[in-house]
């Protein structure tokens, strides 16, 4: 990093924009991913993935724009062109779709091939006598190093191409005549919004909404219960039909009363038989 505006190599330029832009977007995407997970969706599978990719578009455009403008001002000493973010984003997306897909394919092939070659090497008599742990590590180093080197090369290639895209924009940009300190101030103050209270209110409101949504959707009990854990069966209160029970009790009572009266009448007739207290026992309600 120097105070003088400099010419950066395409790889360095690509890295200077891509690396911070990636990490700028990450906190927002993690929050989105978390919400998806709380809802029971996997952010790496459809439909969650589609949702995440869709919402990533404005985030990435903003991130690439912000980082791009910073790099232009501070390191290239150039005035960033208008809608730098959008331009770099769609060009980058096109690059990712074409070169990226090719690179993924090539890397996959490399991994497969190097793994099979390494496997064959390990089958050579000399290697076969080695103990298991050593064999695992050696085989891993064999195919791993080849795959890593290819991955690094492909990544550098991608950064090179992206850097060229950035350079393309830089070539069309006009120089920023201000000294270093002023340029640093310029990108620093770019981060301060014009209407602070509005921005902060919107931020706070979004935060509150997301938190409330999180609370509403997250599962109360574990989504992965242990197979042999017996949930404490809450002893369901025996199905009570209170009105039925009451009516039954009423009926029993009236019957009992009637029988009591009959017995009392009988007792009066047959004087001397003290049966009344005993009959009261019969008035007990039957089990509900």
């Amino acid at each position, binding site marked *: 990093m120097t105070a003088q505006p400099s010419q950066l190599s395409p790889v360095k330029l690509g890295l200077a924009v891509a690396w911070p832009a990636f990490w700028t977007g990450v906190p927002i995407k993690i929050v989105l991913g978390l919400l998806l997970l709380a809802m029971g969706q996997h952010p790496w599978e459809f439909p969650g993935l589609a949702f995440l990719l869709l919402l990533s578009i404005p985030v990435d455009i903003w991130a690439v724009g912000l980082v791009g403008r910073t790099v232009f001002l501070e390191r290239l000493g150039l005035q960033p062109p208008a809608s730098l973010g959008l331009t770099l984003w769609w060009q980058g997306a096109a690059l990712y779709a074409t070169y990226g897909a090719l690179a993924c394919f090539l890397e996959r092939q490399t991994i497969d091939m190097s793994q099979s070659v390494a496997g064959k090497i390990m089958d050579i008599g000399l290697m076969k006598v080695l103990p298991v742990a050593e064999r695992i590590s050696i085989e891993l180093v064999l195919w791993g190093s080849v795959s890593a080197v290819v991955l690094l090369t492909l990544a550098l290639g991608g950064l090179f191409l992206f850097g060229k895209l950035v350079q393309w924009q830089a070539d069309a940009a006009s120089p920023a005549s201000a000294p270093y300190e002023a340029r*640093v101030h310029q990108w620093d103050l770019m981060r301060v919004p014009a209407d602070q209270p509005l921005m902060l209110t919107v931020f*706070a409101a979004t935060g509150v909404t997301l938190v409330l949504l999180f*609370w509403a959707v997250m599962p109360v009990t574990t989504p992965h219960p242990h197979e042999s854990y017996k949930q404490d069966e809450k002893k369901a209160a025996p199905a009570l039909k209170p009105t039925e029970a009451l009516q039954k009790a009423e009926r029993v009572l009236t019957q009992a009363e009637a029988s009591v009266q009959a017995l009392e009448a009988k007792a009066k007739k047959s004087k001397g038989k003290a049966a009344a207290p005993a009959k009261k026992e019969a008035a007990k309600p039957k089990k509900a």
Partner: protein
Amino acid sequence: MQPKLKSKVRCTDREVGEVTRVIVDPLSLEVSHIVVGGNGVGGAERQVPMSEVQSVADDLIQLRTTSGALAKFPPLKRDEYVTTHEVEIAHLEDRLHVESGEVLVPLPTLERNVPRRTFFTNLTHAIGAFVALPFAFPVLKYLMKPMYAPFDNRWLKVGNVNRIKTDDVGVQFKYKKIVKEAFMPEAEVDKNVWILKASPAVLEEVYKGKDMEFRDQAGRLVWTNKKDIPYVVFSGKCPHLGCGYKWRKVPKLGKEIFLCPCHLSIYDPSGKVLDGPAPRPLDPLPIRVDAAGNIQIIDIEFKAGTKAQTRIV
């Protein structure tokens, strides 16, 4: 005004030097002496009490004495002193102003922009508030889990009515209840209730002409004690503070009552409070008696110490 370091010192006749040091009294936090050094004092620094100072100006201290008399002031014994950096004296910086200027450090240029500073201050607070906020509600529910356990409405066998021989006499029925708390294995606890066979007068006192209803947390009816059933069961816990109470004959009164030994609450056979700190009568529980005379109850506990009857178990 306090004397400033490096200000010139003048006697009545001529200038004698400058203030090289200042001595502060650690208790009163006031300047007690100035130390005069520099030209015209023959080498040693002289310790001059503030009482000898006639006037203090920004750059000039006027002494009352002559330059000749200056020599009678004692020389400074530096070993007997420490600097204010070597000892912590509370609030000394607030009171001491012996430097004639300030030492300044520039604000970084980026920090001079007030809107920038306030924006990042506010944004930091905003993000900070949200960082752990998602924890608040789950943590609250987590801690509250066992606090409002659902009610257990099991019927428990406590004994048989053949133990009750006389009307309006309290008979204690002890029983065992199986409890399972959280992850603990099942345990047996000893509980007791008081049951009496109530005469119509006592029954009327207990029920006051209405059937007694027992409900669960959702308000649904669990059981109704019919007012005609003569068997009444009282919870074994005194409604004052939950102690176990007893049935006693009181010779003075010539009658039998329920007596709680903890704070001497006294209840009549219908559970009504006769004396003592109990806020409400004894709590009746759901009871049912089958044809063979076996008594079953639902073990309910109510909050102790309140006038209102609130079920807690």
